């Protein structure tokens, strides 16, 4: 088992390295930090532009391979992900923002799993009846709604709700800093958005898997021996059908950083996703590559955990 995990980990690390390198070259060829300075009125002298760009190691007069070498050396030896064109350290900016995103997404994921799995189980037991059809129609709506449309609709609804009752229950910007209740009122709408986006997958997959196992031979055997239907489903069918869901939950780690890009931008939450958008807008090569690498780390962590969960939960799979 340990050597299996070790081999997978090594493979993922090599992939992560290759993908980050790709992202660095992509960002270096498509982002143009020099344009930030050229647009200034009055434009600063060429020498001072070059000096600032050299300081951030993003000067397009230097060959990109040489820049990559310097960047890689700093990252590998000093864990220094560079500075933005304005001279702020990427390390300091990303660390606490990543934590903000993780908190936001974790809460939403827990809610999404609870909601999705319960709806999925209820729908599978009532296959093709009213509850199944209605919940399916609602889920298809959330499945096709882009995150940003859903978030903006909730902002609109939240503000209308505030106006209707004449008090500010929901806040639509920032995270608030006046205690737990205030935090909850700020985080409510972003969390609802991410939950609605996330629960759909759990609903649909849990329904499918439970339907598969409900018709399995061992469940029929249990029923034939006189086990009541609900007990048979709970003890025999539900347990097996939770394995793919558990893998799905671990898999959702892969989208921790991406999932929050739109929500953080719309609700003005200063997390990793918003930092990525800001970094791109400011032509910040080092900043955007750091977030892309962070997203890659999340993917690899999710894949590795999924490998482990599969091996632990599913007795049919032999690790070799």
């Amino acid at each position: 088992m340990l050597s299996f995990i070790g081999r997978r980990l090594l493979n993922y690390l090599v992939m992560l390295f290759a993908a980050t390198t790709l992202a660095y070259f992509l960002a270096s060829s498509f982002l143009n930090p020099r344009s930030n300075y050229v647009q200034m009125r009055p434009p600063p002298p060429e020498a001072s532009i070059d000096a600032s760009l050299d300081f951030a190691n993003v000067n397009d007069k230097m060959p990109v391979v040489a820049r990559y070498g310097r960047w890689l050396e700093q990252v590998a030896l000093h864990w220094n992900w560079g500075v933005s064109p304005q001279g702020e350290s990427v390390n300091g900016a990303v660390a606490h923002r990543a934590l903000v995103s993780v908190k936001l997404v974790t809460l939403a994921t827990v809610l999404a799993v609870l909601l999705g799995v319960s709806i999925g189980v209820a729908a599978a037991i009532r296959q093709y009846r009213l509850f199944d059809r209605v919940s399916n129609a609602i889920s298809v709506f959330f499945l096709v709604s882009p995150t940003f449309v859903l978030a903006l609709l909730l902002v609109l609804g939240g503000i209308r709700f505030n106006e209707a009752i004449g008090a500010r229950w929901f806040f639509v910007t920032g995270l608030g800093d006046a205690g737990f209740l205030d935090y909850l009122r700020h985080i409510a709408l972003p969390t609802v958005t991410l939950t609605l986006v996330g629960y759909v997958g759990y609903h649909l997959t849990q329904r499918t898997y439970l339907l598969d196992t409900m018709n399995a031979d061992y469940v029929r055997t249990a029923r034939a021996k006189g086990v009541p239907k609900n007990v048979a489903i709970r003890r025999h069918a539900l347990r097996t059908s939770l394995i793919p869901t558990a893998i799905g939950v671990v898999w959702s780690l892969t989208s921790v950083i991406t999932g929050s890009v739109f929500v953080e931008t719309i609700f003005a939450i200063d997390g990793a996703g918003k930092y990525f958008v800001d970094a791109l807008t400011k032509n910040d090569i080092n900043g955007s590559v750091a977030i892309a690498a962070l997203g890659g780390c999340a993917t690899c962590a999710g894949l590795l955990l999924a490998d482990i969960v599969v091996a632990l939960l599913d007795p049919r799979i032999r690790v070799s």
Partner: protein
Amino acid sequence: MVSTNLLPDAAERARRAGVQRVPKGTLVARRFARNKPAVAGLVIFALLALLALVGPFVARWGYDDLDFGALKQRPSAAHWLGTDIVGADMFALCVRGLGRSLLIGVIASLGITVIAAFVGTAIAYFEGWRERVGMWIVDMLLVIPTFFLLAIMVKGAAGTSGWLWLTAALTIFGWVGYARILRSIALSLREREYIAAARFMGVPSLTILRRHMIPNLGSILIIQTVLGVVYAVQAETGLSFLGFGITPPDTSLGVLIRAGSSTLLTAPWMFLEPAALLLGLSLSMTMVGDGLRDALDPSSASAGRA
């Protein structure tokens, strides 16, 4: 009269057996037509496509005409869907944005399907080290969320030809996930006898892929192209919403939603109209895709018999 024909033709054989022959296309169309949500989706999509095509000719205003006498007006007789903050007609903008998003979505989805079909089947067909290398590269491209790579690549796109660049970028990065799925489906195809027969007859690999592997994925490819439009439209609108991708003066549904999001309280129609179009487009294409899946899948019971 005694028939001298020892081998009766197909129609005669069918008549004798009392079986009515139905061409495959008719069969699929019938199964599709029985699926009410799918037909509703097709109708909505047809209406939206019609709106995008005919809209510019029936609109009273061009999308770049500014009516300075009517800034941020509610929908009225003069401006059917109201105006935005600089006085441009929302109907004209929505029609233009819808056309743009649809064009990008359809072209990118077709490109994605073609690339994904070739790469996916090629990885499955060439076994051994080539398969391992191919899968490693595909997995590697999926490590960093595609959305980030897309955003980095299209950030610099600007001006009215920016949409071509965006379409190309969506195609370049969009095929990876689909190729992975197609490869796993094609794995069972490569074991078939007719593939082996073609191989032993000395048919070139590329011809085997083109003539024998890809046509046998036909129905899957059709479904993926339809659902791929939803993916491409959502990626385009998402990027444009964040300020990358399509940028003013050109417009798309994403650009319009971005503009509407800043006047959410004072002029909600600026957000609600393009958002409704985007939702209608995504929902209708998804319903059509699901309906096609059921109609094309011979083992699916959900579309009734025959």
